[in-house]
């Protein structure tokens, strides 16, 4: 027989201002199994907690009901609290009479009080069925795997490796560096992007604890927090480890004029190439779709000239298994393909309408124009440059609803660069808002204003050519008048979207994405670098649009979380996971299909029946993978699966308490 204590919280006037708390406490005292019922101003406060501890001891309570705020807020507080009094922490049940009662019914105090009593009755009924639960332990492999070798991945890798852990980086491109190495100068300090990111690339490559796979992808992920097994697909590079990066091969390669992805097609590369001179590793890759050796079956020039015999046409994809304790996903972003969406801006027909990233390459001294800002159509220096912000962002009708967060600042920087590099030039920036919420950002924007950039509040409606120039039709909503700019070049600040293939990464690793396809953090405020899957962490623009400072900060934050996880040799597992009653399990494995965490595996058991031994298959729950979602318990026809802490019996007793 349970001896239940009920503790009703006023939460100041949050609950007490609406619900008649003393009346609830009086009613609760009458419920079956309740031996003690009390109320207090703030149950979560020190005296409130003390009150619970002494009541447990005094009244020899076996279960506790706290009626207060959401369990999301204070369940852990009260679990620890009753554990101090010697109770199993899972002998607690909470009734949410704040968020689900007093806050939503503040104009109906009487009904709210009645509902609070019902909610407490429900909690008491469940408390009567609670069983002590015990946490399990899981061993931890002290090694982390990072998917994505951009600035987020590199920063996190260095942090984790510096703490003494092994790190594996998987990068899809032939070099690490990500988007940051493409950029020219970074706002608001105007320091050179490559100058600050390439040393980090080199540090990562030379770090004794870091192993880098480039031109590689994650093929398969198995296991759970502390114990992941990841199959890495090393795509065939056609160049083996004997390569010294001397450059003879790409100098001799006869296949020219392949648009270089690194320069967004504004420069050309060979069929064997490194993306840019500071690439890490400094080892080329053969583009098998364009290489004559592969397309036509004859050429062999690179192989002939290679001084170290590093060219290997026969090389195939390789699969390597890495066992790690944690996974960090840092797959970054891509820019939205505006040319498919915005007919009013010409569907990409006009060569002098470019994106911000094109501008970055162009203004970069090591870029395709050697740092000169020129019109792609005729190579002439533009005099009037128009910048259009929010192309694809803040446009739920055509593209994305969200703000891409970095564009206001890089556009201000671009404006500054035009005005600085082209004497007598004119810059018009069309904006909806100017968002500069970062340290020294507003100051940078104001500096650009001072330099003469004409900020015009309004969205551009149409861009069309007239002669060899472009007419940009916008508005000045502050004056309430249409605006027409005769421009030489238009730069679009296009929306950041999740990197291509990121949905596959989410599926392979096993975590959720948000409505826009960005990776879903466990809690937007309190757990921003974790996913809902234990041991899988997030950093950078894959979680949502971000600039470099925020990306690096988040990467270091995620690294700290991973270092924390890897600092344990074993960790506690949540006890509120599914349990199979093998005697009742029919082995249909419907549960396995429905489990989002791939936590259910078939298992063979041997049963002794009178006179014979029978071997049959039953479901088995991997306690490391199970996240306690309960989906399997619903799918299980014989009712063999139960979620500990939320068993069928417990839930039905709650239903009875509410409905009967």
């Amino acid at each position, binding site marked *: 027989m349970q001896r239940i204590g009920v503790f009703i919280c006023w939460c100041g006037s949050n609950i007490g201002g609406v619900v008649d708390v003393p009346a609830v406490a009086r009613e609760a005292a009458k419920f079956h199994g309740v031996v003690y019922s009390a109320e207090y101003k703030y149950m979560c406060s020190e005296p409130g907690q003390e009150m619970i501890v002494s009541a447990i001891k005094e009244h020899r309570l076996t279960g506790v009901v706290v009626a207060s705020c959401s369990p999301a807020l204070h369940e852990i507080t009260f679990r620890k609290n009753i554990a101090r009094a010697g109770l199993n922490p899972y002998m607690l049940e909470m009734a949410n009479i704040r968020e689900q009662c007093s806050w939503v019914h503040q104009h109906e105090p009487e009904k709210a009080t009645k509902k609070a009593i019902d909610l407490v009755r429900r909690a008491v009924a469940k408390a009567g069925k609670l069983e002590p639960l015990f946490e399990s332990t899981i061993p931890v492999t002290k090694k982390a795997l990072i998917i994505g070798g951009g600035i987020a991945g590199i920063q996190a890798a260095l942090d984790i490796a510096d703490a003494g852990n092994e790190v594996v980086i998987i990068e899809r491109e032939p070099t690490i560096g990500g988007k940051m190495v493409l950029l020219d100068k970074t706002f608001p300090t105007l320091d050179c992007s490559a100058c600050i990111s390439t040393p980090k690339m080199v540090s990562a490559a030379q770090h004794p604890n870091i192993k880098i796979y480039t031109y590689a992808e994650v093929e398969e992920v198995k296991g759970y927090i502390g114990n992941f097994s990841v199959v890495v697909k090393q795509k065939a590079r056609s160049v083996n480890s004997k390569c010294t990066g001397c450059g003879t091969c790409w100098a001799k390669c006869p296949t020219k004029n392949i648009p270089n992805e690194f320069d967004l097609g504004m420069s050309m590369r060979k069929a064997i190439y490194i993306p840019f001179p500071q690439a890490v590793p400094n080892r080329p890759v053969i583009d098998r779709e364009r290489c004559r050796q592969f397309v036509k079956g004859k050429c062999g020039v690179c192989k002939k000239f290679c001084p170290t015999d590093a060219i290997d046409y026969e090389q195939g994809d390789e699969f390597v298994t890495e066992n790690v304790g944690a996974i960090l996903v840092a797959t970054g972003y891509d820019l939205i393909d505006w040319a498919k969406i915005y007919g009013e801006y010409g569907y990409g027909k006009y060569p002098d309408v470019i994106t911000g990233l094109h501008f970055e390459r162009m203004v970069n001294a090591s870029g395709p124009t050697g740092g000169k800002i020129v019109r792609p159509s005729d190579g002439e220096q533009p005099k*009037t440059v128009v910048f259009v912000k929010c192309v694809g962002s803040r446009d739920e009708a055509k593209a994305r609803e969200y703000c891409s967060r970095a564009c206001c600042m890089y556009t201000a920087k671009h404006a500054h660069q035009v005005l600085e590099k082209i004497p007598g030039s*004119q810059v018009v920036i069309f904006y909806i808002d100017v968002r500069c919420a970062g340290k020294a950002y507003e100051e940078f924007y104001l500096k650009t*204003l001072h330099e*003469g950039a004409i900020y015009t509040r309004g969205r551009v409606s149409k861009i069309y050519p007239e002669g060899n120039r472009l007419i940009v039709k916008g508005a000045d909503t*502050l*004056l309430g*008048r249409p*605006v027409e700019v*005769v421009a030489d070049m238009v730069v679009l600040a296009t929306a950041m979207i999740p990197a291509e293939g990121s949905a596959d990464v989410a599926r392979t690793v096993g975590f959720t994405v948000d409505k826009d396809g960005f990776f879903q953090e466990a809690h937007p405020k309190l757990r921003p670098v974790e996913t809902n899957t234990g041991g899988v962490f997030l950093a950078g623009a894959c979680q949502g649009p971000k600039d470099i400072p925020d990306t690096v900060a988040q990467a270091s934050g995620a690294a700290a979380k991973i270092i924390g996880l890897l600092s344990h040799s074993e960790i506690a597992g949540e006890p509120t996971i599914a349990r199979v009653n093998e005697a009742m399990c029919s082995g249909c494995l419907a549960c396995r299909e429905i489990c989002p965490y791939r936590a259910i595996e078939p298992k063979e058991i041997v049963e002794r029946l009178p006179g014979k031994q029978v071997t049959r298959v039953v479901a088995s729950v991997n306690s490391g993978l199970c996240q306690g979602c309960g989906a399997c318990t619903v799918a299980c026809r014989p009712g063999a699966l139960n979620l500990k802490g939320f068993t069928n019996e417990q839930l039905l007793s709650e239903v009875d308490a509410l409905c009967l």
Partner: protein
Amino acid sequence: MMQQPIVIDDRKSDLSKEVLLHSAQDSSLCFQCGKCTAGCPVAFAMDLTPNQIMRMVQLGLIDDVLNSQTIRLCAYCSTCSVRCPRNIAVADVMDSLRIMAAERNIPGTDRSRKVNIFNQAFLDTLNMFGRSHEVLAMLLFNLRSYQPFHNAKLGLKMFNNGKIKLKPDRVKAVNEVKEIFQRINRLRKGA
């Protein structure tokens, strides 16, 4: 009012430079927060709000700006100037715009025309006597604005209180004041 598109092309306007020269105020700093308009006591009677004027100066819309009534309705109370987060003395910008309008002999319309007529009447009495003459300035204003009995009630009340003096108060060295007017006139014509 017709809302013709604002055309931004290669013919860059020097309006904001001219304003800078006149008032030492850099209008490009304005980020259109609108605090000037929000605090302007006369904004309700203006055809363009102060922040719109600032915006038009940035865009070089010289005709719109100099023909607006706003520039002369501004009472130079300077509330905008002391509250501007960008430290722009907006009232000084207005001052320079009315000067620019005067230089171009833009008479103004409606309300602004009246302000202009009164200012001119005031300066005429000043030029005549070395000191301004309230009654004469008001009479000149009434005649030139075709409203002979304007403010007659006020005049009568002031007369009854002994606050109207018909005889002008003349500076002995009135020529010195006249000289100031003439030298400046010559300077402007020479320039």
